[in-house]
């Protein structure tokens, strides 16, 4: 498997330095740590800290900046960052108004972020957390660890970040984040697996005419494997599962993410959106905003996910508020 890397052990560190050098107006890297913080600091506002395993770029470092995150912690590829790193991110981001952790629902992420939150709380920093679990491919029951957090996390960053930027207090920012989480659902699929640099081979094998439906963002197998069909058919399947949640009713205003997994051309994402938009509109949903592109990727995986967020006035205003980050700019 061909990769544009140097030493496998250095991929995360070299990536972070590269980001900091590309966007010094937005981010700087904390010395000796795998943490990107806002170049201008976060004094006087509630700080948002997120992170997770690397390999999901631009998540999360690409969303550090005005109106979104204050710090992002990068773990090894597809591996949660460690508590000491998260703790340093919390300390660096804290602007005196408290810190909200935005955690994707994975066993490791939750444990590491919670341990870091305990350490920060011991130092007198006010820390709250929200856990994003938007992937409808996974059954939410007492028999699983719960749904995974995937591309819907971007809406949490955007909307809670706007609330913090506007001067919301920690309770308010957390409330808004939880409102997003309650109203956002996603589902993804892959044409092919991804290749983790350290492993050097695809995480699973698919035949030339097979696709994996309900895939996560770590090359973990999906819910079922089936024959490749048209992107319209595939989109219908993903939408059907998301709409079956019963959150979205005719007349609702919604926001959509058609998210690439890293190895899919924008052309194909727009082709998908062409149909997704029509299907949702036919169902009486009003699409207030659509994001199309690579927001929460899975290295070089070919595939995409669909995310729907039901909006109310508050969420829509915050979603439309300005943001200025390496990967998301909105005037």
């Amino acid at each position, binding site marked *: 498997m061909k990769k544009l890397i140097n030493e496998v052990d250095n991929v995360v560190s070299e990536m972070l330095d590269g980001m900091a050098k590309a966007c010094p107006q937005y981010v700087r890297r904390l010395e000796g740590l795998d943490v990107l913080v806002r170049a201008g600091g976060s004094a006087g506002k509630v700080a948002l800290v997120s992170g997770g*395993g690397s390999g999901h770029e631009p998540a999360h470092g690409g969303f550090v900046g005005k109106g979104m995150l204050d710090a992002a912690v990068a*773990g090894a590829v597809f591996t949660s960052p460690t508590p000491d790193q998260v703790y340093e991110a919390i300390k660096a981001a804290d602007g005196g108004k408290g810190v909200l952790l935005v955690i994707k629902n994975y*066993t490791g992420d939750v444990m*590491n972020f919670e341990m870091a939150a305990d350490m920060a709380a011991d130092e007198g920093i006010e820390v709250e957390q929200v856990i994003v679990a938007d992937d409808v491919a996974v059954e939410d029951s007492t*028999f*699983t660890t719960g749904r995974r957090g995937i591309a819907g996390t971007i809406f949490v960053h955007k909307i809670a970040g706007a609330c913090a930027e506007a001067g919301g207090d920690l309770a308010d920012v957390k409330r808004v984040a939880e409102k997003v989480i309650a109203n956002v659902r996603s589902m993804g699929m892959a044409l092919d697996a991804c290749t983790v640099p350290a492993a050097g081979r695809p995480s699973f094998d698919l035949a030339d005419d097979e696709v994996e439906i309900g895939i996560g963002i*770590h090359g973990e197998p999906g819910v079922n494997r089936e024959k490749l069909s048209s992107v319209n058919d595939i989109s219908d399947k993903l939408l059907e599962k998301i709409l079956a949640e019963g959150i979205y009713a005719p007349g609702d205003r919604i926001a959509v993410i058609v998210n690439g997994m890293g190895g899919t051309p924008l052309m194909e994402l727009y082709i998908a959106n062409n149909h997704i938009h029509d299907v949702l509109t036919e169902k009486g949903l009003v699409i207030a905003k659509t994001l199309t592109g690579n927001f929460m990727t899975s290295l070089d995986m070919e595939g995409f996910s669909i995310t729907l967020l039901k909006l109310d006035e508050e969420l829509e205003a915050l979603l439309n508020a300005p943001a200025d980050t390496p990967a998301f700019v909105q005037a």
Partner: protein
Amino acid sequence: MATLVYDCIAGIAKTIIDNRDFLTDLDREIGDADHGVNMARGFQAVLEKVPQDVPDIGAVLKKTGMTLLSTVGGASGPLYGTAYMEAGKVSMGKETLTPEDLRDMLDAAVKGVEKRGKAVQGEKTMLDALIPALEAYTAKLEAGASLLEMLDAACAAARDGVEYTKTIRATKGRASYLGDRSIGHQDPGATSALLTLEAIRDYCREA
């Protein structure tokens, strides 16, 4: 001259590092193919960072736990980190151990993992190796057996526990996403727990 507790930790580290690919392959079946890679990275750091000449067993275990916590990542980092740190808490200041001390350390480690992982036995996790091992060890201890007999019983029970994980579906961790598809595969975390216990047993046998 390295202390005995360092030598024991080094034995565990060698076992984990030697089984890096085996553990990763198990994880590829039902997880995200990084358990061996992450654990090996952590124990490599342990070999480099844990001082060889500190006689305080609790202090060495605490340093081991802290090192794992800051280098392993994923779920295994907090879980194994907690296990070593909790075992270190109950052995702090000790330079030798009785069989009762060892039981208390294992007990503390198990309780720490249960609390950190919010898990119980039967969820296809490392607890399915550790809890039977603790029970078997305790039973032999109460029956007045020798230390090696206790450790052998603990390892045998842990091995049975690993076999048992093949028969059940995961309800914790990433393997739980697979539902019934996780049945038939042994749990990587239970396997690394078994390897740890066997390394401790082998160290005590040779010491």
